[in-house]
């Protein structure tokens, strides 16, 4: 009975929401968006931000040339349009006019740039700044195909030759070779436009604590470990479809809550309007009784990597046996409360090139035992899984311990902090390790080439040290190929090889969730995850 009421309410709510869109409810101005951040962000300076928490705040303050719509498609942002010339090696961006840097910040203090308009020269300066060897941005290498990058990085040139201003509102970027996903790379949160004056005022280290950009919200205050406050950018360039000035909100307040339990509790108490939904709360959140629930596949894959150069994983049969040993359905259904989808291969659903007909590994402990016996381990074996310290990783590994025990594998666990984990895994010292990958740009290149091509063995991403010439040839070809259908085919062939060779224990693809209060309007959960959301068009019906 109770369930029925919930259902009726949910339907009513859905109808109300749809109705709201249909009659175009008049947005209300005002209110503070109250949200939580999962950590004290290390970098509000986008040039150094490599983590999702930093990006989450950065997206409100800074803007890229091109953005992503909620479904992950590239759309204009500070560039109104762009053309691709010379076989995909020259990109011309027509910049939007009337975009201004923030004129004030931190309680009305004027910024060094004084709120001037952004021109193509600012972009040239910014790209030079990001790629400069002195700046040493950890993400500069994402654009290492820009012409003159190597020379500039090694000090042979004093500027980045490939980025030029054709006039005040036209920016040209040339690459040394055609790189199909280049435009996707430019959506990454590091490649934003920055005000030279403010960076010079604060210096590279302190700009992090006084960020100034062009985005819908301005930086106000950062109380370490406590909260980050942003205020409305009253000179923001974007208007809604009725010509109303955006954003609607007066500001954003991010509480720093390093604990999903507390985050959810705070949400239910009404202190924050949006919450991540951790496993224990999934059922309640999904019921719709505590707010609007959003769910969508996130382009990412959670896996355990085998180092194919180290015993016992040099033997393909052992790797395959491990893949047969786990019951992904039960694992996801019970331990993860169904908030993920079982992984058959590398590419997540929703990504270009995803193959719904891919044949993965089913749960078959008998077959696993048989493969182990063939590989010379009739009595099982003992292996150690290394993971980075995190309750969620521990929770999953603990479940899999029992699964491996069934096929005679004693799984020991070893946790280290993220820095050491990455370091030892990159060096190829760890035979069996946990990893996860969420797209930086929505293209299979970001998965297959980056994570498994033999050129990328080690720190670049191929932690399994997988080395397969056929696979290499396929992914290289796809990188240069212009025709989407051919590319799709090449990627699907490449992925089949990966599944057969099993350098990973494929576990699951992420599904992202978000829970927002019923009075929130205009909220969408982006394909890349809640952390990429911008609150430009969100408003509160309070």
């Amino acid at each position, binding site marked *: 009975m109770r369930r029925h009421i919930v259902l009726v309410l949910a339907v009513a709510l859905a109808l109300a929401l749809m109705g709201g869109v249909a009659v175009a409810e008049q947005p209300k101005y005002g209110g503070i968006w109250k949200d939580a951040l999962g950590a004290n962000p290390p970098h509000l300076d986008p040039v150094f931000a490599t983590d999702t928490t930093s990006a989450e705040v950065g997206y409100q303050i800074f803007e890229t040339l091109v953005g992503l719509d909620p479904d992950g498609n590239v759309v204009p942002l500070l560039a109104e349009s762009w053309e691709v010339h010379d076989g995909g090696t020259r990109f011309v961006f027509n910049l939007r006019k009337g975009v201004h840097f923030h004129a004030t910040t931190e309680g009305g203090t004027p910024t060094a740039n004084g709120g001037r308009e952004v021109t193509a020269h600012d972009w040239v300066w910014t790209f030079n700044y990001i790629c400069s060897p002195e700046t040493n941005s950890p993400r500069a290498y994402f654009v290492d195909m820009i012409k003159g990058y190597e020379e500039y990085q090694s000090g042979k040139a004093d500027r980045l030759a490939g980025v030029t201003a054709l006039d005040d509102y036209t920016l040209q970027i040339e690459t040394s070779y055609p790189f199909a996903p280049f435009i996707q790379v430019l959506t990454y949160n590091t490649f934003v436009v920055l005000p030279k004056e403010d960076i010079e005022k604060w210096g590279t280290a302190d700009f992090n604590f006084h960020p100034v950009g062009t985005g819908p919200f301005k930086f106000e205050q950062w109380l370490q470990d406590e909260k980050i406050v942003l205020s409305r950018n009253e000179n923001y360039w974007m208007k809604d479809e009725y010509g109303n000035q955006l954003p609607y909100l007066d500001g954003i307040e991010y509480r720093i809550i390093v604990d999903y339990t507390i985050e959810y*509790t705070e949400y239910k108490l009404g202190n924050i309007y949006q919450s991540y939904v951790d496993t*224990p709360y999934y059922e309640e959140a999904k019921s719709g009784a505590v707010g609007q629930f959003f769910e969508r596949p996130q382009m990412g894959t959670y896996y355990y990597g085998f180092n194919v150069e180290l015993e016992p994983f040099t033997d393909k049969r052992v790797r395959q046996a491990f893949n047969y040993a786990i019951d992904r359905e039960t694992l996801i259904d019970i*331990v993860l409360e169904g908030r993920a989808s079982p992984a058959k291969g590398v590419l997540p659903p929703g990504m270009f090139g995803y193959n719904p007909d891919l044949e993965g590994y089913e749960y078959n402990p008998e077959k696993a035992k048989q493969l182990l016996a063939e590989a010379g381990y009739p009595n099982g074996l003992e292996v150690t899984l290394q993971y980075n310290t995190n309750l969620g990783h521990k929770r999953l*590994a603990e479940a899999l311990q029992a699964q491996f025990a069934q096929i005679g594998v004693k799984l020991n666990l070893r*946790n280290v902090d993220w820095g050491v984990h990455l370091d030892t895994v990159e060096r190829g010292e760890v035979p069996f390790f946990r990893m996860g990958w969420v797209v930086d740009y929505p293209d299979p290149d970001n998965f297959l080439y980056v994570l498994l091509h033999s050129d990328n063995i080690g720190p670049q991403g191929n932690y399994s040290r997988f080395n397969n010439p056929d696979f290499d040839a396929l992914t290289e070809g796809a990188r240069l190929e212009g025709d989407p259908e051919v590319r799709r085919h090449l990627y699907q062939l490449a992925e089949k090889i990966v599944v057969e060779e099993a350098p990973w224990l494929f576990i699951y693809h992420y599904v992202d969730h978000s829970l927002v209060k019923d009075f929130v309007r205009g909220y969408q959960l982006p394909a890349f995850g809640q952390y990429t959301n911008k609150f430009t068009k969100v408003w509160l019906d309070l």
Partner: protein
Amino acid sequence: MSKQEMVLSSAVAKQYNAEKEPKGRSLWADGWRRLRKNRLAMLGLFIIVFMTFLAIFAPYVAPYDPIEQLIWTKGRAAKLASPSREHWFGTDLYGRDILSRVIYGTRISLTIAVAASVVSLVIGVSLGAVAGYYGGKVDDFISWLTNVIYAFPFLLFVLSIVAFRPASLTLVYIAIGFVSWPSIARVVRGQVLSIKETEFVEAARAVGASDFEIIFRHILPNVIAPVIVQVTLGMGSMIMTEASLTFLGFGTQPPTPSWGYMINQGREYLLSGQWWWSVFPGLAISLTVLGFNLLGDGLRDALDPRLNK
């Protein structure tokens, strides 16, 4: 060890300094008689004996295998089942029996308490004895070392040792033991200082006994009583420290049924209403620490006649 115990221990040391006469058997007999009259202390003793019994006979007492995950065979029904006749303390996310895990958890806590105490005893007794016996520069140096270790907030020190190394029980008890020795060293030093001037030690020296012999034969036996009090009181806080470490996510590795880790795992579910995963291990910690505290208090009173009026 908190500063509290340190103050108490120096009080204990002072009182022992007061009685210059080393005591033999009568001290123990008297002590036991007094202890038996102290009902709270006996309760503490009972709790510890009970926990030790559970630890030793865990396989016979526990109704289930503590690491067996029932969800793979019994499905959803086995997951986070509330306390029932089959599972008195309920089950956890993987369908493991929490009662059995709490029972097996006694092994972890008591191992930590005993092993860390051994580590701190070895360091503390030897340094304390050497400092007290030789005095002078050696004493100054060891006292300085003691003060340095004392200057660190206990938990921070242990965390700094444990956090950067792969989790293991051995690491945890070594770290805890390594940080807790100063209180023992102080007690021992104080005792040795007062005993070494007594007539019977003088006599032994006159007969030509070596330093080693004097320390081990004549002095250390007289230090045992205050050290026992110190160690008993310390065990409670060692168990608490281990629980704090694992609660913060350091120090133990699944599927080890450590109480602190169970509280940590269960806390998310506590706030969604499945209280049993973290409440029962919390009770187990409280009970065990209570046992050590009661017994420690009782021992202190019993072995120190001056306090008993």
